């Protein structure tokens, strides 16, 4: 969030379980971060499960990145 404050595009990858905490922190720091939410958990996944999460999260990232680049 500090990075976004300094003008760097800094998407946060968070799992759904941690989203409220990240949002509370963002509010406390008065930032409105770009957030990519992936379903919990990430730790303990096997390769195939992780690949599936990567594919979904990457799709969100590409959309978000294109949008950020396009508007700057």
């Amino acid at each position: 969030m500090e990075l976004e404050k300094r003008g760097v595009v800094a998407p946060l990858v968070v799992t759904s379980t941690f989203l409220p905490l990240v949002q509370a922190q963002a509010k406390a720091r008065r930032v409105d971060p770009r957030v990519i939410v992936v379903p919990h958990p990430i730790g303990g996944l096997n390769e195939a499960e992780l690949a599936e999460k990567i594919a979904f999260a990457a799709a969100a990232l590409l959309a978000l990145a294109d949008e950020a680049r396009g508007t700057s």
Partner: protein
Amino acid sequence: MTTDWDVAVVGAGTAGLTAATVAARSGLRVVAYDRMAPGGQLVNLTVLHDFPQPGLVSGASELMAELVAQAAAAGVTMNFAEVTRVHAGAPPRLSTTDGEVTAGAVLVATGLSAGRLGLRGEEELVGRGVSTCAGCDGPLFRDRSVAVVGDDEWTADEALELAGLASTVTVLVPGEPRWSAARAERLAAADRVEVLTSASVVALRGSGVLSGVIVRTAGGERELAVSGLFSYVGRRGPAGLVDGVPADAAGRLHAGSGAPAAVGPVFVAGDARAGAEQSLAAATADGTRAGEAAVAALRPADGGLNLRIIDPTHGVLPEDEGAAAGAPAGTTDWTQVALFSNSKPNATELLQGMGAKLRAHWDLPELGFASKESASVPADGDTIDWLAQRYRMVLVAAGD
């Protein structure tokens, strides 16, 4: 099966509001019941300790406002009625002071009742010396003596808050304290605070208003003259609220937040659940889990990953004077992209996988990489400086 609601949440405290928001964000029709006001225990607190992270403090009213705003934005309907019974079944049915409703899933997040000692005359003295809320009633006892009964972190915090107002604060610990060494140190350093262990209150004194308590310790019984008594023991869960769901000795329900109770699609989250940690961080995590589990229970068919981008808008909110979002002052461009891992298991792998897709998509050179030493420490300032100067975009693994 048609029901009045997809999800009915019982109790709009931290766990209930979080669960309701999660369920409503995935498009379900959600009602949240509270017999008082939304916020639950937050209503009684001013400063929150160890939230959002251990060692940090934050404001209770800010968190409450945020939880309520999120629930409203997600489309949660609030109903200020008491739920008197949850009849498990297909579908579950709720009896409330506002009538009966059915729901596809029920999330119980009623928290615990106020602390009570179970002594004769106690109820009559509530509001007349007997309290469970230092933030609300503390100022009534300025320059007077008070006793605090309990053994956990939050008891210690309440005693410390009272020490700023009362002339003396006697903390009566039924057995041995369970609070952390840091809390013990702060209590020891507070000159108006005395801690008595293996101490129980056996009777209350006072007619109309509290004038003292009889305390029993290994040394015998004695009267302690106090005008205030703050009790954090004897808090009870909602035993009997849900048909067929068993409770522990403290009345907290034996059911999961992530898996339905044996009796049907009923989930329990927050302090009301047997074995819960009883903290805001735990209530938030539990509420999220319960909300997701309810969604999964009602939408088994779509089973896929539900991925969303929350608020693709970004930058610094207008209140933050002086700081401006936008292009960084440096000379970075869009080929300069880095990954920043929090060192949690699989976080780096996830980032690298996502980074590889972005590299292919944008035809980028090698990506930069940084990581925190460990997940439990904040990012160090030098790393942030380096990333901010060198990169136009940094993909951050923030929490799992």
